[in-house]
């Protein structure tokens, strides 16, 4: 299992700067916002957390369609499925998700404090947003794994994966953003939405891999 994790990390880092594209997309989305809403620093500070979350959400969806398709294209997926008695397929999926998150989403989380400065956010808001992103983005990857597994057999599944997943990620977005705001605005609570966010991630860490594994098994032809 560790071997699979290391292989996927190695692939993520070696194959064609996929990490860089994700960060670049995130940066570009955030850089576009001030042109859309105007460079008013107060306004930017207020919508900053939400913009960071939306940017991170879209950037996370970007590479998800390749999660299983790359393995299917070269035949590795068959062998991974056949080994399901040695290594439960759901665990294999979970490991692949973790490797994908580490190589292409964790850099986004690390870059988000810098982008927070661009949005003129307060230090507390930046810290809260980064923390919620760290806790919440694994849920997006895990939900995305289901979509990627369902669409794995489709030749042009890329856009479809995003469209399938986006509605499912709305709860993550809601609680992520409300926790980020809760840390700054006084009446709103931080702990409650943050705990719900953690619960969502843990919930999908169990449900997501099983659903994705079932979809992968039935997709083989």
């Amino acid at each position, binding site marked *: 299992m560790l071997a699979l994790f290391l292989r996927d990390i190695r692939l993520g880092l070696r194959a*064609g*700067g996929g990490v860089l594209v994700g960060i670049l997309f995130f940066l570009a989305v955030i850089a576009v916002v001030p042109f859309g809403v105007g460079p008013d620093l107060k306004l930017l500070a207020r919508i900053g957390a939400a913009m960071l979350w939306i940017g991170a959400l879209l950037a996370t969806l970007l590479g998800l369609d390749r999660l299983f398709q790359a393995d299917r294209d070269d035949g590795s997926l068959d062998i991974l499925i056949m080994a399901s008695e040695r290594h439960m397929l759901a665990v294999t999926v979970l490991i692949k998700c973790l490797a994908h998150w580490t190589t292409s989403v964790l850099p986004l989380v690390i870059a988000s404090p810098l982008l927070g400065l661009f949005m003129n956010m307060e230090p507390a808001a930046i810290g809260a947003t980064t923390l919620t992103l760290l806790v919440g983005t694994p849920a997006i990857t895990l939900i995305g794994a289901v979509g990627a597994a369902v669409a794995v057999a489709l030749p042009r599944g890329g856009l479809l994966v995003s469209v399938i997943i986006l509605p499912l990620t709305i709860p993550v977005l809601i609680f992520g953003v409300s926790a980020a705001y809760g840390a700054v605005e006084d009446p709103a609570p931080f702990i409650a939405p943050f705990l719900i966010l953690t619960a969502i991630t843990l919930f999908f860490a169990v449900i997501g891999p099983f659903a994705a594994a079932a979809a992968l098994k039935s997709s083989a032809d």
Partner: protein
Amino acid sequence: MSETVSRTGRWVDLANPTKFLNFAGAVLPWLGVVTVLVLLAGLWMTVQAPDDYQQGSTVKIMFIHVPFAWLSMMCYTIMSLSALGTLVWRHPLADVSAKAAAPIGAAFTALALITGSLWGRPMWGTWWVWDARLTSVFVLFLMYLGIIALTRAMDDPAKSARATAILTLVGFINIPIIKFSVDWWNTLHQPASVFRMGGPTIDPSLLWPLLIMAVGFTLLFFTLHMMAMRNEIWRRRVVAMRRIAARSAERRGTR
């Protein structure tokens, strides 16, 4: 007359990667030593320089911020020239030069943004504003990252070279925008004080350390660029030799 001929002859010689490697091997140690010496002198002068009566000690950030900003634009200009070299003259080293310069340019641009931000915080009271100069430099940073992503995305350097060159040239529009943004738009960023018509407006006690630091960082850029180019040539040789290895093993296998 004869001198120009011999000089162009030498340039043509350098087009050969092997000649370039020899040239770089001979020049790099000296260039490195000179770079270190100039940078040390610049740092010494920076420490000695007086504080500005308006900006206090933060003016010391200028001694690195201005060279970084200048290098971020110079590096892109060099990449654009290399792009021309790839597209027009098909110079074999032009693509190597562009690919090697991109990460260095990105690093200098990032430093210009970071030091500017650290300077702006005490002076303007904010880390960042979306004004013309800052935004255009940020766009330059994104351009660098995009070019790096494009050069890494394709396996075959010959294929990626032309695509990268075209992208680089299109992005060059940004450079004059950065340069003149402080004059065209009324922004928070102060206008140029060194390279301007009618001489610098800056006090000599601050100008000299700035100039030395600028020369030092420019030398640093050229040293790093040459090293990165050499690495890139080596990397391509490794790829070529591996392909030969696979093919020669095949021939031995059939025999």
